[in-house]
């Protein structure tokens, strides 16, 4: 039997799949290239060489963004996988609680994705989940960083390197990432360095995360950072500079939610090893 857990985010679709007890394979794709989740899952599956009669369970992390899927979409969603079972929604609460319970101390979970950033907290011995989410027009997540790196002609991979070279981070305060593009162009024209502008962008994003943590009344607790933003060292170190205690990464932060989903589905007790 194979379990597939899919986390369809605003920018990336992330997938974790494994047979019980085995190493977990993870995989991601641009959201616009993987609109049909089941098709994407099917492609990923073939890498595991499923047996002809091997059962496959397909889960999707429940997202509150999802509206009622249309009739056709519902038919479509199941049809490519019809040999197996239909796609099931995986209750996100259970997944986040699982995630929190897998940490060996009481920490807050900060999920910083492309548009949405959320803080999760476990209450009452793990039966309740409290979520604090950013406001809608503070689109200061990963998408902002992505757009800026594009504008500045810096590869996403080089972000950490570039930011670490900054000497005097620029001050940006345009709340709108798209419009900030032209602000950035004029900053460059005025002689600012690319590094400094990017560092400014990172500071901006971290500021918004800090505001969120402030609203969640972090106090002295440590934070486990997951989601795409957690991949970048510059974000992590800036958070730490601001006095946030970050827990060590256990696996690629981008995949934590879907891997946790898999752990939940397969009732595993600890983080599995992952393989990209």
């Amino acid at each position, binding site marked *: 039997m194979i379990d597939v857990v899919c986390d369809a985010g605003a920018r990336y679709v992330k997938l974790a799949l494994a047979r019980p007890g085995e190493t977990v394979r993870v995989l991601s794709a641009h959201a616009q290239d993987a609109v049909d989740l089941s098709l994407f899952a099917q492609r990923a599956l073939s890498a595991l060489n499923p047996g002809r009669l091997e059962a496959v369970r397909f889960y999707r992390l429940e997202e509150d963004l999802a509206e009622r899927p249309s009739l056709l979409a519902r038919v479509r969603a199941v049809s490519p996988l019809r040999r197996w079972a239909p796609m099931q929604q995986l209750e996100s609460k259970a997944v986040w609680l699982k995630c929190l319970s897998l940490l060996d101390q009481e920490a807050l979970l900060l999920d910083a994705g492309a548009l949405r950033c959320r803080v999760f907290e476990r209450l009452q011995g793990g039966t309740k989940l409290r979520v604090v989410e950013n406001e809608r027009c503070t689109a200061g997540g990963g998408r902002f960083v992505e757009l800026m790196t594009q504008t500045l002609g810096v590869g996403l991979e080089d972000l950490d390197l570039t930011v670490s070279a900054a000497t005097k981070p620029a001050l*940006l305060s345009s709340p709108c990432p798209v419009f900030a593009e032209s*602000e950035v162009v004029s900053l460059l024209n005025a002689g600012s360095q690319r590094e400094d502008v990017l560092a400014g962008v990172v500071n901006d994003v971290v500021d*918004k995360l800090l505001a969120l943590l*402030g609203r969640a009344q972090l106090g002295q607790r440590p934070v486990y950072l997951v989601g795409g933003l957690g991949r970048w060292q510059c974000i992590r170190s800036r958070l730490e500079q601001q006095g946030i205690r970050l827990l060590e990464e256990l696996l690629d932060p981008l995949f934590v939610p879907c891997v946790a989903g898999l752990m939940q589905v397969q009732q595993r007790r600890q983080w599995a090893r992952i393989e990209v």
Partner: protein
Amino acid sequence: MSATLAELLSRLEQRSRLELNAHARLAHAHSRPAVGVLCAFAPPELIHAAGAQPIRILSHGYQRAELGNPYFAATHCSLVRRVFDMATSGYLADFDGIVLSTGCDHSRRVYDAWRHAECTPRAVHLLHVSSDSSATAVAALEAELERLSVFLRELTGHKFGDSELSRSIAIFDRQRTLFEAVYRHCARLDSPLSGQQMLQLSLVMSSIPVEESVSILEALLEALSGATAQPQSEARRELRFFLASGHFEQVERMALIERHAGRVVQELMCTGAGQHLGRVDTTLPPMRALASRSLRRLSCPHAADELDRRFAFILEGVQAGRCDGVILDRLSFCAIWAAEAFVFRRRLRARGIPVLELEGELGSLGEGQLRTRLEAFAESIRNATSTT
């Protein structure tokens, strides 16, 4: 330009760069408590009479991005966001007390957040200000000013009565008379003062002791009486503008406007004409007179029923300064400035006066976008004048 004028102006420029907390420390050096004022509703006379130095709370010179606080979101006014960040980061620790007012939804909530977050200074007072200037509103503000006096007396330990108050009023009125003379001078075609220098003057005046600003103004007027700028030929003439702006602390923004559009010769800004024009009516009892001036001066759009007067002031300024157009500049996310700009734009258009609307946030200039707008505005005015 005479040497003394140049000297004076460069000294002014340096002082306008001084940071806010430095002003507070200077006040302490003269053993005067420093009282910060967020909006211009609290009469400086009252604070002066209480033996303290009123300092307008502005955020220029504050070098921090300010999105990291959980109280004010990215869609709150950037002035308020920055000031609140100053309060939480200890930047205002040198102040002894702060007076806030119920100017708008953003600024009145600063008072609430202030009491709940760890802000310095702890002594903070909220002045209730009505959003009109009727006799009733003036009477209400008068009562409010009594409450403010109690706060100030407790803060400074300095008892004061009507006679001290009248003395303070006299000196501030002297300052206002002098400022008005300078402001009128700016309207002249041969005035050497730029809008940028006027703004620097206003900023300095809002933070230094009044006695000192009186002497600066006197010196400035004397120097001005001799100095005139080179008159310009009609063809290469610089364009002249009236600026009504909520970006009342950004000297760089003013510089940008003057560089790319033309000279700002008259203004309505909450640190400039809005704060320093209009004398106190000395025929009234002092408190009543202060309340009345506070509401009826040309302030921000807060006083809704003063809109016509503000508009008349703009028209007068346009005429006196022979302005080619009006620039309405405001802080993003401010509903009341936006509404007033909507009204002014319509009215100016109806009168055939060119108008440019800008908006932006403190802390970032967005030079490229501004420049395009300013240049296009100037070009369109030149086009219009060359065709007629």
